[in-house]
Each structure stands twice: as C-alpha cells, then as structure tokens.
C-alpha cells in the first residue's frame, strides 16, 4: 500500500514524508479512476442524484405532505404522472405529490446510507487499528469480541430494537451502523498489522510518540484508501438494509419517507394500475445503488492496482 521510498527517509521527517508520498499515491489513483468509464459515469449519476435530493424540492410544484383530497381514491386515473398537473411523478395513494416524496425519499435513503457507513467506518477503523497496533492479548480479546458479535443475527436484533424503542432515524442510524462496523474492524486490523512494522511507525514509536497519537496520525491516514473503498461499497448495502426495515414498517415516520418505504408501498399497489408508484422510486433506488457499486469498484481498482 505504501510506496517503498518512505522507508529510506530520515527520522524526524517520517510522518511528513508519508503524507507527501501519500499525495502522489492519491494523484496516481485519481488518474486511474478517471480512466474507468463506468466509474466516471456512475460518479456523475451520483452527483446528479445528490443534486436531485438537495434541490429537487425547488422544482416540485407541491409540498411533499400536502394531500390533494380530490385525488384520494381516484389516483389510478387522476393521479397519473403529468407535466400539466405538476405531479411529474404522479401521486401516491394518499393523493400526495410523488415527485416531492421521491426527492425526500432519495435524500433520506442517501443520508441513512452515508451516515450509517460513516459510523461503521469510524468505529470499525478505530477499533481495528487499535487491536492491530497493540497486538498480542489485547488484539486477541478485541477480535474475539468481533467474532462473538458477528454470530449475532443483527437484523433480528435491529428489528427488536426498533419495535421496542420506537422507531426513529437515530435508532436506524445507530442500528445499521452497529451492524456494519464489524467487517471494517477486521479489514482495518489486517492492514494495521502490515503497516505497524513499517519503519516510520517504528521510528515514531522509538522517539516516544504516544500509541494513540501513532494510531491517529500514522496508522489511520494509511488506511484511508481501503476505508474509502469499503465505505463506498457499504453505502448501497445500507440503503438496501433500510429498505428492508421500511418494508417491515419500522423505518422513518410519516409524513417523512424513504425510497424503501416508497418502493414497498408501490409494490403493494402494483396490481392496482398505479405502477408509477413503484417505478419512479425504484428507478432512483436502482440508479443510486448501481452508481455506488461502480464508483466503489472503480476506487478499489484505482487504489489497489494489483487487484486487476
């Protein structure tokens, strides 16, 4: 992962050099990434989706929670998607503008995915780096704990938590983040084991830098590549988790919504002539997940050329 040149630098400069070298590594990676067409297209798609979630509300002709009572119960023929009525994506079963709801749903789903991934990656990286750096008994115990937690059917526990403590976005973030940090911890530990034997770490240790500082300043920055790749690939799976939770009715609360909740509603009305309720949210769902997959793959290839 780390360029060889880092090994031959003098004592005091070790950290700084690593950073400099890191920069050239990143710029290499950037070049490789932008050569990958699928990844670049996906990145553009992601940016567009992000913009849609952020600014779509300004295009929407209706508030996302305003019910048009004249459309209720009649939306199979009156709530169809149309430019004229301003309901670009039609209306949902309660007579609300689907466009505005898809905007919000996309936003919430992205947020759940990204915040969840962020929590998982932070906790996982720190945990893995500490375990890997300390090694020995600490490592043994910490990784055993990970093994133990990995055997817990977390989706079941998450369902229990949401049923018991009431559903809230916070609970969802917490639960989803907690499920996903375990893998990250293992990966981070593995990487740390190789990094900690590098000269610059040994040197930092020798001149009396505290272990915690070493982990923060020297180990973690060097894990960044793998962390970014993992996080990008984690986001789509978290969005999928969230959709499952929403399907069970345990997701975000009305009048707020998420893509999972919209898809689940659309799927249950599939036979009733309101297919737009399914395919608009599904389209955004599928696009988002594809885009993350391809960007993640692109990043992995770019940061780890050997893997090709």
């Amino acid at each position, binding site marked *: 992962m780390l360029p060889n040149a880092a090994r031959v630098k003098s004592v005091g400069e070790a950290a700084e050099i690593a950073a400099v070298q890191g920069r050239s590594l990143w710029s290499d990676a950037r070049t490789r990434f932008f050569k990958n067409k699928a990844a670049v297209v996906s990145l553009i798609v992601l940016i567009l989706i992000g913009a849609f979630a952020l600014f779509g509300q300004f295009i929407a002709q209706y508030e996302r*929670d*305003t*019910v048009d*009572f004249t459309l*209720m*119960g*009649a939306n*199979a023929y009156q709530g169809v998607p149309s430019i004229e009525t301003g309901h670009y994506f039609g209306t949902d*079963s*309660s*007579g*609300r503008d689907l466009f505005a709801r898809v905007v919000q749903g996309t936003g919430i789903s992205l947020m759940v995915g990204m915040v969840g991934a962020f929590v998982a990656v932070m906790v996982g990286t720190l945990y893995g780096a500490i375990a890997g750096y300390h090694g020995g008994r600490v490592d043994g115990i910490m990784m055993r704990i990970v093994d133990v937690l990995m055997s817990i059917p977390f989706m079941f526990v998450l369902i229990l938590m949401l*049923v*018991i403590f*009431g559903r809230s976005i916070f609970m969802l973030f917490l639960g989803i983040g907690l499920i996903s940090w375990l893998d990250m911890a293992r990966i981070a530990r593995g990487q740390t084991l190789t990094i900690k034997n590098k000269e610059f770490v040994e040197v930092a240790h020798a001149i009396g830098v505290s272990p915690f500082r070493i982990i923060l300043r020297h180990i973690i920055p060097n894990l960044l590549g793998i962390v970014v790749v993992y996080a990008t690939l984690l986001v789509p799976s978290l969005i999928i988790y969230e959709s499952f939770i929403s399907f069970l*009715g345990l997701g975000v*609360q*009305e*009048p707020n919504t998420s893509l999972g909740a919209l898809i689940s509603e659309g799927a*249950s*009305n*599939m*036979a*009733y*002539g309101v297919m737009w309720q399914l395919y608009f949210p599904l389209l955004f769902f599928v696009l988002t997940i594809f885009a993350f997959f391809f960007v993640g793959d692109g990043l992995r290839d770019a940061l780890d050329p050997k893997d090709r």
Partner: protein
Amino acid sequence: MTIKTNLMATTAAMLITAGGAVYADGHATHPETGETLASEQVFTYRDLDESPSIDPGKAEDTAGGDIIRDLFEGLMGQDAEGNLIPAVATGYTVSDDNLVYTFTLRDNAKWSNGEPVTAGDFEYGWKRAADPATASPYSWYIELTTVANASEVIAGDMDPSELGIKAIDDTTLEITLTQPLPYFPDMTTHYTLFPVPQATIEEFGDEWTKPGNMVSNGAYVLTEHVPQERLVRERNEMYWDNENTIIDKTVSLIIPDENVALTRFLAGELDRTEVPAGQFPRLAQEYPDDIMSVPQACSYYYTINLTDTTNPALLDPKVRQALSLAVNRDVIVDNVLAGGQKAAYTFTHWATAGFETPETPIAAMDQAARDAAAKELIAEAGYGSDNPLSLKLIYNTSDSHKSVAIAISQMWKQTLGVETELANQEWQTFLETRGNQDYEIARAGWCADYNEASTFLDLMDSGSGYNDAKYNNPEVDALLAEAKTAADPQAAYTQVEQIISEDVPIIPIYHYAAAKMLSDAVEGWPYNNFQQKWYSKDLYIVAE
C-alpha cells in the same frame, strides 16, 4: 333455520350417504332453494394471522371465534339475521326476578367421539374459563355476564366450584346472575361460554387442541392445523344436525399481506378475503358479484387525552370542537376507505339494534359550514397563524390507520393551520401508551360485545377501564346508570350522544363496514348479522 324443517327425506338420505365425500356431479341440489350444488363443498378463506388460541376457554380474537364456532356449539346460536336461535339448548326459561336462567339441552347433541353433550360439559367449561389456573385472557367475559361469584372466582378469592352455574341433570342447566341482564341469552353465543370436553382436556392437557386430540361438539372437527399456514376443519359425523350441513370442509389460510390475499382470491384460490383499503370502488366495478360490504359493529374514533399529561390546548372544549368539525368524514369514508363505511357523528354505530341516531348540530351542517365554524372556534380559543397549535397523534401500525391519520392531519392543517406530528407504534406499545394517557390524540376503535348501544356508550362512563380520554362528566354517568334499568333507554342514549358531541372527549370518525370479497359461488352468507357471526354449516357452494 327454516331450511332444516323443510328438508325432504330423499334429499336428506342422499346428503347423509354423501357424508364427507364427493357429491355425484349435477345431482345435488339445495334442499330449499333447489340451486345446483357444486360437487366439491369446500369453503376456503383468508385469515390475517394465526389466532392465539382455538381453545374456547382461552381464545381471545375474532378470527379464532370464527374457527371455534365451527368446531364447538354453545347454548344458543345466531341465524343469518343475527337473531337468537336454539343450538345445544332447545330453549330456556327465566325466573320472575330475571336472575335465574334454566336452559334445556337437546338429548341428541354429541361430541365427535360419540359421547353425549351434557349440562355438565357447560358447567365444566365455564368454571375452567373462570379458574385463575387456566389464566384465560377472556375470563372477564364471564364477569360481564354477571353470573354469580364470577369476580370472586377470577380474583382467586373463591373456589371455581362456587360459580353460579349448575347442571341439574344431563339436559338441564341452571345459571344464576347477580343482576338482570336482558341480553344474557345473546351472550351465550360467544365462545368463552361454550362447552369443552373434560376427559380430553384432562388426558392431553395443553395439547388437547391439536388435531387428533381434539374432541368437539360443533358441526366440524379439526383435521389439520399448521400454525401460520392453514387450519382445516371437516364435517363432524356425530353432529346432531349433520344431515343438514352442506359444506364438507372449511379451510382457513393465513395470508399476512392483504394484497397477496386479493391476488390469490382473483386466482381462484380463496372464496373470501378482505378488500384492501381504497380498492373497494374499483373492485366493485370489476367484480360486482364477488364483493360485499355490510355494516360491522365497530366505531372508529380519535380519543383525546383530557388529563394533565395532555397538550393544554386540548383542555379547551373549543379546540376539541374545532378539531372535530374540521374532520371531513365524507372524504375519509368516500375517498380514503371507500368500502361502504359511514361517516360518524355519534359514537354508537348507526346499525346497532334499537338505537336511533340522534340529531346533533355537527351532523346537521355541511362541511363548508363545519369548516367555517371550526375556524371561528379555533380563533376564539386564541390559535391562528400568529400562535399556531401543534399536536401529536399516535396510531397503531397499519396502512389504513396511516391513510386516515395522514388525511386528518392534512384537514387540520389546511382548515385550522394546526400542525400534527404523526407517530405509529406497535400494537402492544400503543396500548400501553394510550392506556397510560401518555398521548395527546390517539386512534381508537371499539367493537360491540353485544348488539345494544350501551356496549359503546359505557366507555364514556368515568369509571370505565376503556375510557382512555379519562372523560369525566357526572351527568353522563347518571344517564348511563339510568339507561341500565330504563324500559326504553333511547332517550338517555340520545342525551349522552349530544353531550359527547358538545364536550368532544372523542372524535367519532366512521362506523365500520366489513368490505370483503366473497366468491359468487358461496351462498348462505349472513349479510345481515351485525356482529358478522358466521357458521360454515349455514353456507353452501353452488355450481358455476
């Protein structure tokens, strides 16, 4: 039940020989109407969920009740109109003080193992259901009948043998009440008061309700039961009226998703299922012969917390009136639910026997007038754009409760400028929250225990355990007490409804209707039975 008396001997003989097997094609006709019967007399319907129990003493839900009414038979039954008809008992007499009921049992009633059904079986069943050791969640029903010593037995202060029910001989059953209860015989159609087979229960313990173990006295016996999947009951050859029973087999399938159930109904796998919310008009147009909507004995309302844990604004009757006025019930029943429900301005269901819906000011206005009045009231109460009111509404998780809540919160917002925060909770959590008055406004529904207005209005009594609003109006309490003994309680009920509509401890929203898909081929459905108590033995399938 005139069908049975008119039965011709030849047809009867044929039906008997046919037994549980297949009818000869094209030959079987209905003894009374002459309709050609389908060769396969199997009725298959959808249930939402596995019933907690099919033990009459322990059962607690409506779906379980449907099953138990096929498997077991009580003292009295109901016909298609909901009228009381003889079942195991051929009739009863009552003492002059209306406290002692003596039921005469038919001597040809048998358990599925051939043993006779005796008065002792009823006595055992009642005492078992009341016994604390049984821990029946429906033991309160026994208390509701006011049978002597019920409360003491349930509380464990008295031995179950002290319960006021006694088998005088095998066919005579005497029941003593503590206070006159005109609808007592009606109450015996409920499963908690059914007989159960003592020998079988003692032999198998909790396992007695499994197929193979279970011995029952109804028109059907349990032949297959796979929890969360299916329950099959087939003709009981020992049933006293077996020769007049046409359906050979009834199957209930557990299908959690109502849309899936509808798909399977349309694919011909089911004879009966629920109509998903909002789909009634479309389905009624496409399948006019396979759909029904009949009044169902339940009221849907929002209850307002009137204790000091509530939002202070809600303690102002003007705010409550405004909230009630601003709910456009016609939109709810016509657009949101659209399944034959009726807009409710009174708590008591309009179709309740002997109840005449009283005139209230709110019912007399049109929606525009109501909205105007609501706006005025909320302004008088001091809320408006400069001082907006925000409320919290909780409902238990369900698609249709959600749709109603969304619509009503929008009505409040659009008419009154009131912001409403919605929260759905799981059933058990919801009950706890609501029961502890830990809410501002909560969804509620109430289904009649018996067909009389007091089953609804008693909830408004300050002492009622189900008065989640904690509404306390001595005038109402007095009127309700008066109604209990009055010859014609309608006047008191009218007054109570009028007071409620002034005080608005609850916002009545609609009166339920049972909107179901029911296959065209199924005949004999008791459409006019208000409590929708149906018996497989009264149904039959006609040939296409």
